[in-house]
């Protein structure tokens, strides 16, 4: 692989990471607001530090790409893309700060994210749960329980729930939905049906 290719590979990797992280931060920030969770909010702020580092590294890489002048505009486009992702991350961090700043967020904020009469649950997936080893699409949690998975905690990492995310024993599922679904989800995650 030539030196140029290696550089573009790194730029590409960083931009992928910037985009995915900025989106994860938005999901977490809104979840923090919904749950009034300081822990989640602090997680967002930690990601923001990581985002800042990554963004600086990305900009330096792009600036060091020694392309001909006809490519300069394209490189500027990349820099601006990075700036936008960083701004989205900043907005997420500030939403997290709203959670950390206030004792109790205004009820309207939680209502924005969840409809009325909804609840939020954190549940640990036990070894004996039928969910273990299934992707979220296969698990059909919304169909089975009416609960919507907001985010999954795996060890010390947060995972964005995607249709192809495979559920593991020990995962903590954070889900919101109607109160009636809570019991169903508890049965599903505990494996005691």
């Amino acid at each position, binding site marked *: 692989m030539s030196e140029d290719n290696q550089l573009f590979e790194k730029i590409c990797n960083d931009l992928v990471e910037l985009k995915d992280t900025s989106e994860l931060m938005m999901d977490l920030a809104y979840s923090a607001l919904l749950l009034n969770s300081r822990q989640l909010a602090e997680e967002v702020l930690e990601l923001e530090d990581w985002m800042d580092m990554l963004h600086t590294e990305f900009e330096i890489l792009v600036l060091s790409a020694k392309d001909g002048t006809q490519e300069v505009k394209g490189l500027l486009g990349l820099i601006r893309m990075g700036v936008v992702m960083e701004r989205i991350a900043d907005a997420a961090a500030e939403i997290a700060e*709203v959670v950390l700043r206030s004792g109790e967020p*205004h009820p309207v904020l939680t*209502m924005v994210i969840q409809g009325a009469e909804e609840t939020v649950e954190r549940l640990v997936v036990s070894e004996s749960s039928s969910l273990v080893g299934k992707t979220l699409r296969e698990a059909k949690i919304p169909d089975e329980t009416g609960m919507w998975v907001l985010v999954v905690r795996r060890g010390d990492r947060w995972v964005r729930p995607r249709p192809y995310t495979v559920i593991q024993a020990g995962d903590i599922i954070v889900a919101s939905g109607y109160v009636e679904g809570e019991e169903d989800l508890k049965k599903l995650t505990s494996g005691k049906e």
Partner: protein
Amino acid sequence: MSEVERVEYTPVSVRETLIMMKDISELMIDLAYSAALFNNRGLAEEVIELERRMDALVYVLNMNLMLAARDKEDAESLAGVAKVGSLTNNISDAAADIAGIVLNNIGIHPIVREVFQRTEEHLARVSISENSILAGKTVEDMDLAAEIGVDIIAVRRGRHWMINPEKEIVMPEDVLVARGTAEGIDKLGRAARGESKDLV
């Protein structure tokens, strides 16, 4: 210089308005990334249009919040609501900046296409063929989110864009802009081209 409109007070539900703002800001990000990926001015212009709507919404939201505060306690907690409102607006500003990259002909580096192949969510354009099972259905009825994990964020018919479609009936020759997993997008593509008679 673009026109700046005067915004008049209208009584609205703070909750509904904030939900609308959050949805629009998320839609704008998807549209803006699509505009960049496909280097498409039409989509970029839609983003700018939504940005104008957002700007007006923030004003109306703030007016309603000001009238809602009766005492110190209200002011303290409503300040957080105003802050979240202004932050969703920041996100829409960021989306408008991506649209600006396209509209100002700054140029989309080939890396961008590669990046969108590797991110968790993929964006794609598919055109509907005459014999597609999707032709004649509304976007809502296709229920693609539940079936294959794909969202339709826009439909283009001729020169006209329909943004965040629900009740619109998809016709042959329409172009759908979709977001989803690689696998889901692949299934959508096959159904759109008429190659499969079944989504799953």
